[in-house]
């Protein structure tokens, strides 16, 4: 197999790395590869999780087929490079959906496993890994079939395991039955921080997410729109054609005044009394996917996302974080607040019971120090930041945020003793430690 040298980046484009890539198109090509680099998917992680600067990585995006579906049990076997959005599009007409879907349909199943991703239904459905029935792992000792029953340690270390246990070649997903041609969405304005949390807390829908106006201050701090969705059957409104951002946008495109005006309009778009809409499922689950390469809107320097989760009783600390963001004048319109449940599948899984906040920041000089401050506040509040989004945390902060780190290290050291699967993120945060 030929290796291609390329300068690659995560979705945020703020960090780049020269990496040698193999891209197998057939399973036997994958099997023939010596395991000397981690797998990567669509590189929808924002920071350095899908990079291996100066080393090798296996691009899994061409191993992307759906292999079998057992309609009795709802079990779908796929190759790990299969994209969540394509699975949803193929299975929804049959009345099934992936049980958990992240906010982009371009994420691969392997990437969803590597990050144990969560969706808008996390409070009820838990994390992605909780719906994985089995997977095939390419390990230095050859392929292994892993189930949570037969190999609970390796299973857990792989869910959210950042690709460190081996290359996931195929996975069997437990889909959820869902009459799902469309989504019925109720949108409601919430006027401030307290109302936002209270509304998210009280929401009973299957899918719930809050958009937060990260520029609003004072009494309007934390205002936003809470969306609640249920799948249903009905006439499918046509999905608009996907658009593409052809060039890097200039710096002023997301400057503070522009964002403030945009957010005001976005907020007012929903009538004060709220409204209910019927949307194609893609529009609800993957709203940003309609604009391909939207990350170029942030210009050449790229951007960072900060995402944290804080325990449920840390509302005041969360408010302080939102306040720090709002007064910084650095936030972009993309900011999300969600109530998470306790569901998680691995030692290093991000989800935890509580509040999760995600905010994008254009990569200006002041952004990194602000995000570092926010990470510090997160650690103090007993929360954690998400590896899929991070590029600025420090090694010393990890053990406090991820108490199962040592268990994970032990299992991973056995699975990859020669440390061939290390990524830039794993190196930066010294996640593998001395084990």
């Amino acid at each position, binding site marked *: 197999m*030929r*290796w*291609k*040298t390329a300068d690659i980046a995560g979705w945020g484009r703020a960090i780049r790395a020269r990496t040698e*890539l193999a*891209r*197998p*198109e*057939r*399973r*036997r*090509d994958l099997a023939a590869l010596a395991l000397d680099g981690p797998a990567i998917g669509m590189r929808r992680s924002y920071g350095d999780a899908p990079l291996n600067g100066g080393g090798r990585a296996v691009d899994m995006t*061409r191993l992307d*087929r*759906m*292999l*079998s*579906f057992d309609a009795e049990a709802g079990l779908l076997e796929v*190759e790990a490079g299969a994209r969540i959005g394509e699975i949803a599009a*193929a*299975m929804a007409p049959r009345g099934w959906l992936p049980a958990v879907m992240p906010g982009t349909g371009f994420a691969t199943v392997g990437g969803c496993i590597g990050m144990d991703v969560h969706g808008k239904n996390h409070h009820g459905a838990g994390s992605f890994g909780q719906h994985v029935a089995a997977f095939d792992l390419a390990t230095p000792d050859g392929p292994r079939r892993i189930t949570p029953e037969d190999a609970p340690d390796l299973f857990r270390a792989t869910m959210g395991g950042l690709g460190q246990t081996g290359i996931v070649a195929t996975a069997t997903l437990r889909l959820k039955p869902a009459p799902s041609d469309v989504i019925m969405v109720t949108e409601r304005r919430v006027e401030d921080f307290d109302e936002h949390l209270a509304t998210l807390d009280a929401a009973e829908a299957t899918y719930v997410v809050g958009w937060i106006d990260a520029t609003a201050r004072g009494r309007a701090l934390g205002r936003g729109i809470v969306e609640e969705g249920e799948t249903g059957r009905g006439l499918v409104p046509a999905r608009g054609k996907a658009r593409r951002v052809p060039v890097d946008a200039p710096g002023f495109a997301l400057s503070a005044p522009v964002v403030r005006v945009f957010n005001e309009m976005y907020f007012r778009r929903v009538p004060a009394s709220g409204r209910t809409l019927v949307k194609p499922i893609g529009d609800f689950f993957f709203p940003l996917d309609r604009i391909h390469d939207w990350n170029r809107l942030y210009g050449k320097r790229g951007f960072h996302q900060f995402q944290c989760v804080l325990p449920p009783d840390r509302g005041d600390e969360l408010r302080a974080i939102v306040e720090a963001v709002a007064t910084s004048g650095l936030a972009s319109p993309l900011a999300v607040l969600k109530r998470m449940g306790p569901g998680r599948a691995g030692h290093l899984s991000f989800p935890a019971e509580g509040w999760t906040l995600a905010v994008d920041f254009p990569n200006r000089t002041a952004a990194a120090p602000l995000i570092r401050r926010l990470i510090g506040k997160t650690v103090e509040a007993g929360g954690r930041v998400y590896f899929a989004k991070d590029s600025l945390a420090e090694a010393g902060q990890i053990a406090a945020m991820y108490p199962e780190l040592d268990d994970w290290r032990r299992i991973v050291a056995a699975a990859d003793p020669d440390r061939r699967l290390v990524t830039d993120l794993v190196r930066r945060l010294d996640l593998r430690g001395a084990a």
Partner: protein
Amino acid sequence: MSATWIILGGSSAMARAFARALAARGDAVLLAGRDLDDLAATAADCRLRGAPMAEAVAFDARDPAGFAPILDRLAETEGEISAAVFTGSMPPQVEIDADPGLIDGVVADSFTGPARFLQALAPLIEARGRGAIVGLGSVAGDRGRLGNYVYGAAKAGFHTYLSGLRNRLGRSGAHVVTVKPGFVDTAMTWGLPGMFLVAAPDAVAQDILRAVRRRRNVIYTPGFWLLIMLIIRHVPEPIFKKMKI
């Protein structure tokens, strides 16, 4: 009613993308090639994406004796029958220089094998009075270049064959499309130096589907290759022979 497509060389990235596009619009596909495990996976994928039937069948361009079962199988299917040919092989020219015997295989994979298959299939398609044949040629077939002239020669032969077949089948209501792709992002081009404006296999598949729908005769994909090849074809031979492209 949906059509049944026989896809030769079904393991290539372009063939896979094309088969999926057909499946999504509800056509049945037979995926023919040598790597049956791989083809079975693609077939399963096509069924889940909407193909009423998708199966893998053994096909080796160099073994025409093995074509009969596929042809029998197609004769039994009802409705429209269409075919797409993605076979071809391109060993580095230096290897061919060292072992001229390799030429036979290149010509069989890229030209004579599929031509023999299509020749046997043609009466069936004529009898149905509709359907399409898509033949993958190459921009390499437009002019003999230092780097891959054996492959180019085989593709040139295939182009001419397709042009004749088009002339013949047009009389019965069926149609032949010659597709000349430029650089496509596949395992064949992965990591090769000198690649530019590389097209995604999905984009090529959509171009082919559109060409079938509009009954185009010859297309370049992506379209700008038409221009590039127009220029290359018009470079006078005394100059061209000194060029290293």
